C-alpha cells in the first residue's frame, strides 16, 4: 500500500471540505473495497477521508412509506434491523447475504452504492425499488444513477448521505453467488411497486440494468410462469473465468423466476 494522508472528520461538511481541491483524495466508508484496492496498489490516493467518525451518516428510520438508510449503515445492521425486516424484508435478506459476517460488520450501503461494483448486490435493490439516493448536494433518482462499470452520477466531492427505499407491495432478491467471494455472478431483484413492476439485474453486465420485457409481462401477471420464455441476450454481458456471458444470460432468467416465486410466498 502506498502511504497517504489520513483524515477522520466528524461531519459531512468537514468531509466535503477535506475532499475539496484535492484531486487524488478519496472518501472511505467501510473500506471493504478501498483497502483491498490500496493493498494491491491499484489506487494511490493522496488523502483518505474516513467517514467512520461521521455519526450523522449512520442509522435507519421509517419516514412515511419509505425506509431511509444512512450511508454509513453497515450491511449487518440493515440485515438485522426490525424496521427493514418489517417493511422491506427483501432488502434485509439481500444485506444478510453480502460477503461474510465480518464484511457485513464493516461494509456500508453508501460505500457499496457509490462504488458501483458490477457484482455488488445493493445496486439491484436501489434500481428495482426505485430508491432515491440523497447526497450532500441533492438527490438522484435510481434510474440514471448507475452509469457503468464503477461509474455513478456522483460528482467530484459529492458524498452519499442516505438512500430512501419506497416500501414495495412485494419484493424479493435472488442471487447466484460466486462460491468464493459471495459476489453475485447474477443477482435479480424483483419488486412490485406502486409505480409498476421493476426487475433489476446485477452481476451479469458492466452495471445494473432493468429487464423491460420481464417488467411488462409481470405487470400483467406477477408469476414466474409469465416470464419463463423471456430470454435476455448475452450480448454485452460479462464473461470471465467464473462464467460465460451465455451462462450469465441463462442465470438471469433462472434467478428472476426464483425471485418472483420468493416474492409470492
Amino acid at each position: 500500500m502506498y502511504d497517504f494522508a489520513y483524515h477522520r472528520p466528524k461531519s459531512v461538511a468537514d468531509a466535503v471540505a477535506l475532499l475539496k481541491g484535492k484531486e487524488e483524495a478519496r472518501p472511505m466508508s467501510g473500506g471493504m473495497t478501498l483497502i483491498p484496492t490500496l493493498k494491491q496498489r491499484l489506487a494511490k490516493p493522496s488523502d483518505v477521508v474516513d467517514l467512520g467518525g461521521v455519526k450523522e451518516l449512520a442509522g435507519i428510520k421509517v419516514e412515511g412509506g419509505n425506509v431511509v438508510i444512512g450511508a454509513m449503515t453497515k450491511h449487518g445492521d440493515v440485515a438485522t434491523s426490525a424496521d427493514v425486516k418489517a417493511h422491506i424484508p427483501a432488502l434485509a435478506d439481500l444485506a444478510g447475504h453480502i460477503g461474510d459476517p465480518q464484511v457485513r460488520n464493516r461494509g456500508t450501503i453508501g460505500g457499496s452504492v457509490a462504488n458501483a461494483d458490477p457484482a455488488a448486490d445493493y445496486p439491484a435493490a436501489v434500481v428495482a425499488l426505485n430508491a432515491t439516493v440523497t447526497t450532500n448536494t441533492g438527490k438522484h433518482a435510481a434510474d440514471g444513477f448507475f452509469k457503468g462499470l464503477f461509474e455513478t452520477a456522483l460528482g467530484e466531492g459529492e458524498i452519499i448521505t442516505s438512500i430512501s427505499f419506497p416500501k414495495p407491495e412485494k419484493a424479493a432478491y435472488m442471487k447466484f453467488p460466486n462460491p468464493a467471494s459471495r459476489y453475485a455472478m447474477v443477482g435479480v431483484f424483483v419488486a412490485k411497486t406502486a409505480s409498476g413492476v421493476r426487475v433489476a439485474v446485477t452481476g451479469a453486465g458492466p452495471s445494473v440494468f432493468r429487464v423491460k420485457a420481464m417488467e411488462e409481462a409481470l405487470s400483467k401477471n406477477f408469476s414466474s410462469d409469465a416470464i419463463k420464455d423471456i430470454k435476455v441476450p448475452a450480448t454485452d454481458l460479462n464473461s470471465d473465468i467464473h462464467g460465460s456471458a451465455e451462462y450469465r444470460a441463462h442465470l438471469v432468467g433462472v434467478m428472476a423466476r426464483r425471485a418472483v416465486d420468493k416474492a409470492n410466498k
Partner: protein
Amino acid sequence: MTISVAMTVNGKSVSGKVEARTLLVQFLREHLGMTGTHVGCDTSQCGACVVHVDGQSVKSCTMLAVQAEGAKVTTIEGLAPSADKLHPMQEAFRDNHALQCGFCTPGMVMSAIDMVKRHNYQLDEATVRRELEGNLCRCTGYHNIVKAILAAAPAMKSAGV
C-alpha cells in the same frame, strides 16, 4: 504520514505511532508483538486475522490501525480468563479436536464467539456452517470446528460469557 493511535487491546490501553497505511493486524503483530492473530490470505477471504472491534468480529487485515482509534479490540490472546483456564470456545475446540494445523484457529475462535452471541447462544449445524463462510480451514477440518461451536454455545451461556 505518521499518526499516533490509541486503543484498548484485551483490556489494556495501548498506543503507538503508525503510518496511515498500517493495518490493524500489523499494529497488533508488529507493534504490539501479539502474534496470535494470523495473516493467511491478506485479501479478506480466509478469516485467520479475525479480531473483535467493539464487540463485533472484523477482518483485521482489511482495517487500518487508525480506524480502530479509541476502540476496544479483543484478540485471541485476550479470551482466556486466566493462565490455567481457557474460554469455553477454546475449551470446546480442544475437546472436539477442532484444529489440525492450527493456522486458522484464532480466526475461527473469534468468529465463532461473535456468531454464538449474535444468535443468542442458539445455533444449529446449518447456521454454523453458513456463518463460517468468512473463515477458511486449509486442512478442510470443518467438521470438528462445527461440532466445537455447537458444544461451546451452551457452555458460553452457562459461563456467562
